[in-house]
């Protein structure tokens, strides 16, 4: 359904993404793991055309766009088929929670206001933020802001939603509410690509896991296999370095026992 092919991106001399291809099927929840600076966020931003890739293509719903030469018109058209959730929420500061959710419908997609509000309220209900619909972002906690941001991403019913470290900017006690919402979306069959440091989330919610390091895919597998039988030494090292432990299990050089 969504396929990235041979994406490359450098910032000056630094080759952040050497060559990454990634295929996502309808209903997939793909977790992108990797150490800081591995290029996973840049990959996601290139896929959302927020960073301009040096080369590579993206295919969405059978239509292929060249990430380097894509026209402005196509960028807007392509972006209207995706959703994006940011690490720092990036809610529109001049709009209430509900207006944040409906702006993409009324302004960008020229939808009738009433219809947009119905969809907006439905989306806010899904993330449990209906009672805060008239609050400005500055009056919401981080977790609440992120839930509104998720409502904003799902409202236009995109084909796929990109999540860029959605819980990294949150206090630990607030990550749960956001992960729960994402979990619910995954159960509803929402196609999601999630850059995350939440290993447990990747294991429990994602059905596929991709480990990225130095701008390359190190290992890619369904999530059970990925955690139970990592093939690459670098995957084993990564899992060990994150000090992640499934409850009641230990991690050894051979993987998880």
């Amino acid at each position, binding site marked *: 359904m969504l396929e990235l092919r041979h994406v490359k991106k450098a910032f000056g001399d630094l080759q952040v993404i050497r060559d990454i291809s990634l295929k996502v099927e309808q209903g997939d929840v793909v977790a992108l793991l990797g150490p800081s600076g591995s290029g996973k966020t840049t990959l996601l931003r290139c896929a959302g*055309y927020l960073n301009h890739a040096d080369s590579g293509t993206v295919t969405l719903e059978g239509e292929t766009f060249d990430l380097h030469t894509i026209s402005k018109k196509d960028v807007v058209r392509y*972006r209207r088929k995706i959703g*994006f959730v940011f690490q720092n929420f990036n809610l529109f500061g001049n709009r209430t929670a509900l207006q944040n959710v409906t702006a993409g419908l009324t*302004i960008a997609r020229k939808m009738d206001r009433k219809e947009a509000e119905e969809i907006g309220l439905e989306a806010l209900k899904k993330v449990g933020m209906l009672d805060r619909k008239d609050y400005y972002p500055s009056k919401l906690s981080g977790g609440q802001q992120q839930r509104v941001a998720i409502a904003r991403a799902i409202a236009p019913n995109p084909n796929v939603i990109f999540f860029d470290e959605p819980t990294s900017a949150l206090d630990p006690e607030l990550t749960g509410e956001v992960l729960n919402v994402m979990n619910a979306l995954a159960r509803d069959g929402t196609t999601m690509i999630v850059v995350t440091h939440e290993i447990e989330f990747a294991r429990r919610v994602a059905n596929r896991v991709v480990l990225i390091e130095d701008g390359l895919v190190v290992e890619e597998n369904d999530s059970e296999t990925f955690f139970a039988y990592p093939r690459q030494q670098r995957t084993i090292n990564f899992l060990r370095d994150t000090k992640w432990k499934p409850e009641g299990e230990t991690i050894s050089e051979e993987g998880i026992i």
Partner: protein
Amino acid sequence: MNDRIVTELLESFPKLLMPALSATIPLTVLSFTIGLLIALLTALVQIAKIPVLRRLARFYIWIIRCTPMIVQLFVVYFGFPSIGIRLPSFPAAVLVFSLSVGAYCSETIRAAIESVPPGQMDAAYCSGFTFRQAMFHIVIPQACSTAFPPLSNSLIGLVKDTSLAYSVALVEVLATAQRIAARTYDYLWLYLEAALVYLIICSLLTVLQRMAEKYLERRR
């Protein structure tokens, strides 16, 4: 202060208010409005990095900011007729003041827009906005509250700068005070009275600024 001066000041005050209403205020309102439009356009062409226009905008700001306004007034009013452009005092003043406001406020607006976190633009793009939609619906409204205090500064500065139009034969507050004083020789009192007129206008603007800031504050 003797009775004669008191009577004279009371008599001259309405005479100073008249040019405030007929010259200072219209000149300010007109120049500031046109100036803000120029400022917004020149700020946007720089932010959108439109090739040639961007350089033109920088050039314009450079020229206007780095030459004295009174010299600009002289060039337009006394100099332009020699190349066939004859502007009466009022339009000449509007032209110069608008360009001046445009140059200074352009930098204010550009800075305010650039102070809006880039994540706002990213989020707008990912909500399906075009550049223009993102600018006008998301970024500029938020830049307004940042730009408001410095723009108010420019407005208040402009009210006082209009007194420079005296030098191009525009009958405004200062010119009127000077005319009256030339008859009575009460320069001190009449110029103080002229200052009072500016003080009143600018104080009103200061109060308005505070009210508007409170309003903007409530909306976020």
